[in-house]
């Protein structure tokens, strides 16, 4: 079972920015797609199927926009598939694409995550004033901030933990030419002194709104072997998993949700990982608010409960630490919502391929890509490796 091995042989990203004023909507997807195809040494004609993920259609005001991109993606006569699973969406999308190969249904699949947030505003597209429903009185961060506060209370984490995460991720972003935010002047003080929006979350500890797309080319084992033989190392998929739990289940732990723990356990089991802290070299983690780094470190089994923040403070999660997290700059530096999950997956693949450029971790062999969404209730993860599973 799990009949066919899956290899990532192409990764293509757009330049991420607040407004991609120079391209059309299909142009944005084509930019990522053509870069991925070039990386994979393929053309559109080589692709068997396309799997697309994005956040709600209200962002761009187009119902199932991928239908109007079919010609632009050379997909006439091919299967095209749309996944929609909240913030984890393009992680889920990559997993659906991977399943098409693992099952033996297709051999070469293009998968794309994208968002053009400049078409509207996140505040509008994510939270209409629905009749008869309670209005948000505190914005998006106001939903998560009480749980972060609860984490701090449980763990006694120093109150600058979030500052250290934001500083690290934004400095990592300086090494990633595609990243949205390139804050050359950022400092510990500038983060700490930024406006406390939702105490304990400061402005500089929150993600931006970005335009952008990422595309991956996935192949079967033969495709991975062929790329390898030509000196283009693939990333091998060692495990994939998604998990969901209800937003409003009485008794659910929103600081360290069970679905995240279960999803990690499932993907580690598939990848043969019994000690993630030892066996995983680098992590691309979905951290839209800085404090989620220590929270996910615990949720994903990298640290005992209540101790995740120590890894951050000890520099373990820095580029030169022994568990580097978000070398790309992460969601804190780049957040086209419908692409953010797949960017984590794609950056994990780049690391084990040795192709991450300036933010490459030397000798990275095994990497985790992690995405979550909704009320911290939807999870998608994959483990990729330099070695064939």
């Amino acid at each position: 079972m799990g009949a066919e091995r899956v290899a990532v042989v192409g990764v293509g990203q757009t330049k991420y920015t607040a407004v991609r004023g120079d391209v059309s909507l299909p142009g944005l997807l084509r930019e990522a797609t053509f870069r991925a195809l070039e990386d994979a040494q393929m053309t559109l004609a080589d692709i068997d199927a396309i799997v697309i993920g994005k956040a709600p259609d209200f962002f761009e005001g187009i119902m199932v926009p991928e239908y109007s991109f079919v010609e632009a993606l050379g997909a006439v006569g091919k299967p095209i598939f749309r996944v929609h699973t909240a913030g984890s969406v393009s992680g889920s999308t990559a997993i659906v694409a991977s399943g098409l190969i693992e099952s033996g249904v297709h051999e070469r699949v293009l998968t794309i995550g994208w968002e053009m947030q400049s078409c509207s505003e996140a505040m509008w597209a994510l939270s209409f004033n629905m009749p008869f429903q309670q209005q948000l009185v505190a914005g998006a961060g106001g939903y998560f901030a009480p749980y972060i506060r609860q984490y701090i209370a449980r763990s006694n984490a120093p109150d600058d933990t979030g500052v250290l995460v934001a500083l690290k991720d934004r400095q990592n972003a300086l090494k990633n030419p595609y990243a949205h935010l390139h804050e050359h002047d950022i400092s510990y003080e500038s983060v700490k002194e930024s406006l406390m929006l939702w105490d304990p979350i400061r402005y500089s500890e929150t993600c931006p709104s970005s335009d952008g797309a990422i595309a991956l080319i996935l192949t079967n084992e033969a495709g991975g072997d062929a790329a390898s033989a030509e000196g283009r190392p693939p990333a091998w998929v060692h495990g994939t998993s998604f998990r969901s739990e209800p937003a409003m289940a009485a008794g659910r732990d929103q600081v360290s949700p069970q679905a995240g723990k279960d999803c990690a356990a499932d993907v580690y089991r598939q990848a043969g990982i019994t000690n993630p802290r030892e066996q995983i070299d680098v992590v691309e983690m979905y951290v839209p608010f800085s404090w989620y780094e220590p929270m996910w470190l615990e949720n994903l089994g990298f640290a005992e409960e209540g101790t995740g923040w120590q890894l951050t403070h000890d520099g373990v999660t820095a580029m030169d630490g022994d568990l580097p997290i978000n070398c790309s700059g992460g969601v804190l530096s780049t957040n086209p919502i419908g692409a953010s999950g797949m960017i984590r997956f794609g950056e994990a693949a780049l690391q084990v391929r040795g192709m991450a450029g300036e933010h490459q971790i030397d000798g990275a062999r095994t990497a985790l890509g992690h995405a979550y969404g909704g009320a911290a209730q939807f999870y998608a993860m994959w483990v990729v490796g330099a070695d064939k599973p």
Partner: protein
Amino acid sequence: MPEEATTSGEEDVLRAPLVLEYPFKRTTGPVIGAFLTALREGRFIGIEDDQGKVLCPPVEYDPASGASLTKLVPVGSEGEVLFWSWNQSVRDGQPLDHPFAWAMVKLDGADTPMMHAVDAPHEVMVTGLRVRAKFAEERIGSMDDLLCFEPVS
């Protein structure tokens, strides 16, 4: 659409209007931008594919292969109705405020048709009808610059 009110009246529930309104911003890229620029100038342009076929309105890619297209060419403001339907109940936002025909209009010099409104009486509408573009007097570089097509008298 057939109407069949089969609502069960088991229990009266609350209801309220929900209005979703937004002025979405769309970046055009160079090809769509050029088409809208041409509309502002009261003209049409298309784009040539590898076989020399002219697509109007232009797109950035070959519709069959996805290959990039770049050669913009002029297209006429008159053309022919390839097929059409009649829009009896006009809705908000549509090109005209009275009943009109939707038509696929192939402009002179183009090889593919575009969808738009034809302002003509129902009984005049026929496949093969020659039509001419009617532009707005004040044009700003948007689809609104093209009001509709009218029969060539």
